């Protein structure tokens, strides 16, 4: 347990000590949320949840791939693998670190949207945390899956942008897609970002029930589980 805590703690302290990372994680999305707050209230609610799911996805995918690649380049990954710490402890440490930073980022964005920029939400907070947790699990799975295959930081950035932009922009996160083409609606059907944004809107705005969201939650959880298993296995094979 101490080893897992050490891996989580070192990762978070490295991140907090880097002002550029902190700007990307928090300052930029908060700035965008503030800009969105000048929209009419309906559009604002949609847009800020879009900003949230987009930045959380970008953070988790670039972090998972980028951190592991950086650790391989600096040799800290190899030094950990040569220690008495098992591969599974290392991966659990990485996973929790990513999950915690993703959840913290999402909650800070939600709270700043409500208390700083006036999002009119009054309900569904605990259910929102559950939806966010499952979404973050799915995005961590996507990130660790890509981490098993990428070889350069450039590949990490390109794949992260590809996955996030297609899933978010074409997935109907920022605009209604009821009258969009079947192609756009097809992307929304498989995009975890689209499912997450819809579920969050249903909970926070319309007061929807969790029982109605079982489909999206199972879909996001399933994607996360399958991709996580694939990535973790690939990383273990690489040594």
């Amino acid at each position, binding site marked *: 347990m101490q080893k897992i805590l*050490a891996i989580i703690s*070192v990762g978070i*302290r*490295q991140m907090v000590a880097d002002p550029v990372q902190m700007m990307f994680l928090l300052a930029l999305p908060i700035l965008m949320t503030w800009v969105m707050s000048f929209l009419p209230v309906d559009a604002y609610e949609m847009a800020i949840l879009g900003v949230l799911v987009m930045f959380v996805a970008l953070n988790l995918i670039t972090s998972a791939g980028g951190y592991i690649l950086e650790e391989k380049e*600096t040799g800290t990954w190899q*030094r950990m693998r*040569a*220690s008495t710490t098992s591969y599974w402890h290392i991966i659990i440490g990485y996973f929790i670190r990513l999950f915690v930073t993703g959840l913290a980022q999402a909650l800070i964005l939600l709270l700043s949207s409500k208390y700083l920029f006036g999002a009119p939400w009054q309900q569904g907070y605990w259910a929102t945390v559950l939806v966010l947790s499952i979404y973050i699990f799915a995005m961590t799975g996507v990130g660790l899956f890509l981490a098993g295959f990428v070889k350069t930081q450039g590949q990490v950035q390109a794949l992260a942008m590809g996955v996030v932009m297609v899933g978010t922009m074409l997935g109907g996160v920022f605009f209604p897609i009821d009258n969009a083409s079947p192609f756009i609606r097809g992307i929304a059907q498989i995009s975890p970002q689209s499912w997450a944004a819809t579920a969050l809107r249903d909970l926070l705005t319309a007061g929807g029930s969790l029982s109605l969201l079982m489909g999206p939650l199972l879909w996001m959880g399933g994607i996360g589980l399958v991709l996580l298993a694939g990535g973790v296995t690939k990383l273990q094979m690489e040594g």
Partner: protein
Amino acid sequence: MSILDVKDLKKSFGKNHAVRGISFMVAPGEIFGILGPNGAGKSTTLSLIAGLLRPDGGRVLIGDYDLHLEPQNAKKMIGIVPQEPALYPMLSAEENLRFWGTINGLRPGDLANSVKRVLDIVGLSTRARDRVNTFSGGMKRRLNIAAGLIHQPRLLIMDEPTVGIDPQSRNHILETVANLRDNDMSIVYTSHYVEEVEHLCDRVAIMDHGHLIKEGTLTDLLSHGHRHQTLHLHLHGSSKTLQDLIAQLPGVEQVLTENGHMRINAVEAEPIMPNVLQLVKQSGASISNIRLEKPNLESLFLQLTGRGLRD
């Protein structure tokens, strides 16, 4: 009893046979040097010994433990010092060492003393609270060694720990390595620098194309079957014809020329010097520098592999 016993170790990457069935042992308190050019298989060998790669054949025993059957027990006995500092730059020296101590199984109560002990060993006690990204290259290398020592391993694997650093840090590292040996630690040491290996290592293995082609103490290696001397000539206007003519002189075994630097390997170089000088004069070339080198690891390496260590 040995600390490290490598038996018939093999590793391939596709069609590239990086390590082709090598065997050697390292005794307690011994520094075992591995010399070889890039691509010889040194790094793969170190990765296999550190448990980072799974071998295709053979086995690695660390003390009484088979590295792949009892990895936890075996790895407790190993410390690694990678060529590039494997550290977290945004954390302090002390925070890095506490992390590597925890990862290597030290209990929280033992961490403070262990951190202090290794910082003293590498001479960085006064910089314990400073972030690693404020350190010089040499200081990072020393902290890198401290991270390998934090859990008091019996065997330290050092991969070219002095590449690219200033002479002062290099001397400090070499002194540290010698002191560790004096405290009964076993060390596997790879380097391109022959003088380091000659100075530090109790036994040396020469590796090329995945094979250990020679192994023994420095005295053994230089006395058995290797009495060659090397004559170094720095020439202006050397030619292939001149090289061929010198190669035909009695006693000359090998002539290599690169960028005007001619290396002549001979059983006895002194007696052939007049003939060499005459041939150079006849060819119209001129000599800017001449040096006679007695048998050493570099010339032995050249004789055994036909190429220089930095080739």
